[in-house]
């Protein structure tokens, strides 16, 4: 177990290092000059050239990468703060600290601050969405799996297949139309704005509902399949022949074995909700990581894109790591192997 953990952590760091360099290489080919974007289309060449120099955007790729890595790990101070760029960039933590991603040129703030706010909102969304998705999909999946072929199973299957097929923006628009535009029960957007007449809780309802619908329909399908497979295995028949009650068979024998496949899917859903809910966040104007990614990409905010991608990678690898760990805990055969 200890060896598995050490291996995974080493792999994790190597992947991050390689990915971070690839990120720099990719941004090298992204269209646009960041200095020109900051100054706008009507700035003269002389002005753009001066700002490019101050932002060190004309340094070689490797130089910029190594400087970024050294700044991130706190070995070098960030060179963009203070009067260096003339853009009024200041960081209350100082120029040198571990985790210094630099400044968002789009927002004019330290990236750490930008990420902290947005990540907190996305985590709130994720906690509610996953917290509701897991019990709903487990209940429906087990019910459908244990009643396979019945009208209950067919009804659940039709509904979940339909909902899985619907893009998130369709579900979002439908919910907004019904609950906001027609009934007026809920707000149509979720900017979590201060002083809004709608409470923050009410602003969370619709985006959480969309995510729960999208996730639980899919996870229910996976749980159902896994339960059906498990029910057909010999040890379940043995348990039944031993005279155990159907509930005991389901919860103590079937569920534990049937959860191995869904756990991977649930962890992927966590990864998706934490880093990739761009459409839902954009439609509801929810100030989370997904919307931030979209804005950073449209603006070409290089340092922010790099930070966000690195965090997305970290979350993706971390959830995989947790998935592996869960496998080991749930299935002793994997531990032995």
């Amino acid at each position, binding site marked *: 177990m200890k060896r598995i953990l050490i291996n995974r952590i080493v792999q994790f760091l190597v992947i991050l290092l390689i990915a971070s360099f690839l990120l720099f290489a990719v941004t090298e080919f992204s*269209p*646009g*000059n960041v200095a*020109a*974007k*900051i*100054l*706008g*289309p*009507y*700035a*003269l*060449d*002389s*002005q*753009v*050239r*001066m*700002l490019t120099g101050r932002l060190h955007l004309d340094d070689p790729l490797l130089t910029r990468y190594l400087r970024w890595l050294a700044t991130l790990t706190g070995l070098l101070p960030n060179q963009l703060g203070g009067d260096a760029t*003339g*853009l*009024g*960039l200041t960081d209350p933590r100082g120029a040198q600290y571990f985790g210094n991603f630099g400044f968002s040129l*789009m*927002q*004019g*703030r330290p990236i750490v601050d*930008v990420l902290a*706010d947005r990540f907190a909102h996305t985590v709130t969304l994720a906690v509610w969405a996953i917290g509701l998705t897991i019990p709903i999909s487990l209940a429906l999946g087990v019910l459908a799996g244990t009643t396979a072929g019945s009208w209950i199973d067919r009804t659940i299957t039709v509904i979940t297949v339909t909902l899985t097929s619907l893009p998130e923006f369709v579900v979002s*628009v439908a919910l*907004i139309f019904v609950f*906001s*535009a027609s009934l*007026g029960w*809920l*707000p*149509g*957007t979720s*900017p*979590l*704005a*201060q*002083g*809004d*007449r*709608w409470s923050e809780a009410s602003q969370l309802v619709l985006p959480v509902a969309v995510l729960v619908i999208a996730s639980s329909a899919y996870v229910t399908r996976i749980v159902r399949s896994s339960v059906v497979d498990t029910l057909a295995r010999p040890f379940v028949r043995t348990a039944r022949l031993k005279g155990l009650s159907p509930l005991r068979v389901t919860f103590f024998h079937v569920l534990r074995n049937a959860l191995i496949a869904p756990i991977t899917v649930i962890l992927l859903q966590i990864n998706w909700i934490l880093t990739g809910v761009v459409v839902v*966040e*954009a*439609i*509801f*104007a929810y*100030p989370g990581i997904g*919307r*931030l990614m*979209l*804005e950073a990409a*449209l*603006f*070409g905010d290089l340092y922010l894109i790099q930070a966000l991608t690195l965090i997305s990678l970290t979350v993706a690898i971390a959830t995989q790591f947790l998935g592996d760990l869960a496998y080991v805990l749930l299935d002793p055969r994997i531990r032995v192997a």
Partner: protein
Amino acid sequence: MSKEKVHGYIPDLTGQYRDGRVSRREFIRTATLLGLSAASAYGLAGTIDGIASPAHAQEAKPKGGVLRLETTVYDVKSPAVANTTAHPWIYSQVVEYLTVIGSDNVTRPHLLESWEPSDDLSVWTLRVRDGVTWHSGRAFTADDVIWNLTRLLSDEVGSSMLGLMKGYMLNDVDSGKTDENGKKIITHELWAPNAIEKVDDMTVRLNLKAPQLAVPEHLNHYQAVMLDPAEGGTFDVGSNGTGAFTLTEIEPGRGAVIEAVESYWGEGPYLDKVEFVDLGGGDQAIINALISGQVHGAFQVQPELARILEAQDHLTLYDVTTADTAVSRMRVTEKPFDDPRVRKAFRLAIDPAKACAVAFGPFATPAEHHHVAPIHPEYAKLPEWKQDVEGAKALLAEAGYGDGLEVELTIQQNPPHHLRSATAMQEMLKDAGVTCNINVVPNAQYWDMWTTVPFGTTVWAHRPLGVINLGLAYRSGGAWNESGYSNPEFDRLLTEAEAMPDPEVRRGKMAEIEALMQEDGPIVQTYWRKLLTFYDKKVVGFEMHPTYALFANKLAIRA
């Protein structure tokens, strides 16, 4: 009250208006440009035509309340490099401009009390308004004006004011260095040591390199707010200003809050507070927020969504006719657009009225391929532009493209009307034997290639005078000359027009310029946009402005 000093041309202008040789709009526009106050100009016009000054039906404005408005909230720490018209929504409520262009397209003094151009328009005397104080209590003086203007006109700051005023305030300086492509690196400096001159504590004189009519308009460029020199050119929460509000919170991408200050020198403020809410700029989110009452008004609404909001009882539509447009400009240095016959053929193939209707429905008016709008005071009406497909084919054949021609039109992805407009043009060009492929690129990418792509559609914001855009976009070597157009005859006519205070004479010159643009120019232009938005009916005092400007001090909200 001191008697207004009257420019030498005002009596002639008054005579022309009396004789019906200039329109009322033109009279007021030119009289105010020449330094007459708007109130005096409207009053003088009233003595001739008997029309009372615009009543501005002053609905009693309630005091207090919080207004919530949708807009993209950008980082505004450096107003000098603000690059959208949404940036000043926040900072211009705190720090203000020397002049202000009203919703009626008339420029008025603001932090200035008045301006006086010399008869030849090469010396402008700016008088600072007496009694304006910073929030800190210090008086606003000529030194503040000089510090800000000098700063805005330096290369290091990065303001687009430099491109705007370069022609009459700056000299190019060869740095002696070359860039990676071997091109000379040019920097800039004020053309003379006394270009910006302090006359006394309340008077500044601009001595220009060349006559210029549009100085008051340029002083209202969205970056040209007056910052407190003590703050070094930055702006943030609590910054000192002369405006009706102070910034108390800002988080770019999410929102900002401004709160009323006591004893503002001008009108208002009526509101206690304005909250700006950033919805990510998504049309869907803006519509949802307006319908569910999460915001009282929006920065703008796209025309295709107007019908949805018109059906909402609690909302009111506001729109304004502008000189906001997009031109499909052809790089005259690139084949096939180096041949003026091809450029004219492209114009002849297009029916602007049809293209305009397809793209905007009722929310635009057709243009005439010369980038001077009917709302510009110097606009000259030319014979109606007629689509002539056979004429276009004949010109293309003459230019050696009798068997047809294939080109690529690059457009921005957003807003969607760019694609509708381009598709309409594509279909019309097809009839003339031109295959036009449309290349849609993300907006940010377009601004990297706007001066180099052979055939591209570029947005040009409203500017109050036609000569401003013509000078920026089509003069040889102009700061923003994206088409590379260079025609000595055009340059000569434009320079003459810019030095003419007499609108009647200027209109004659503009007729020549417009005709030259239709014959030889580098653009196909199909529309002038209306800008529109929706506000809650509870909001009092709002007017849609042709450059989206917001005057929060004039707004109030009913309970």
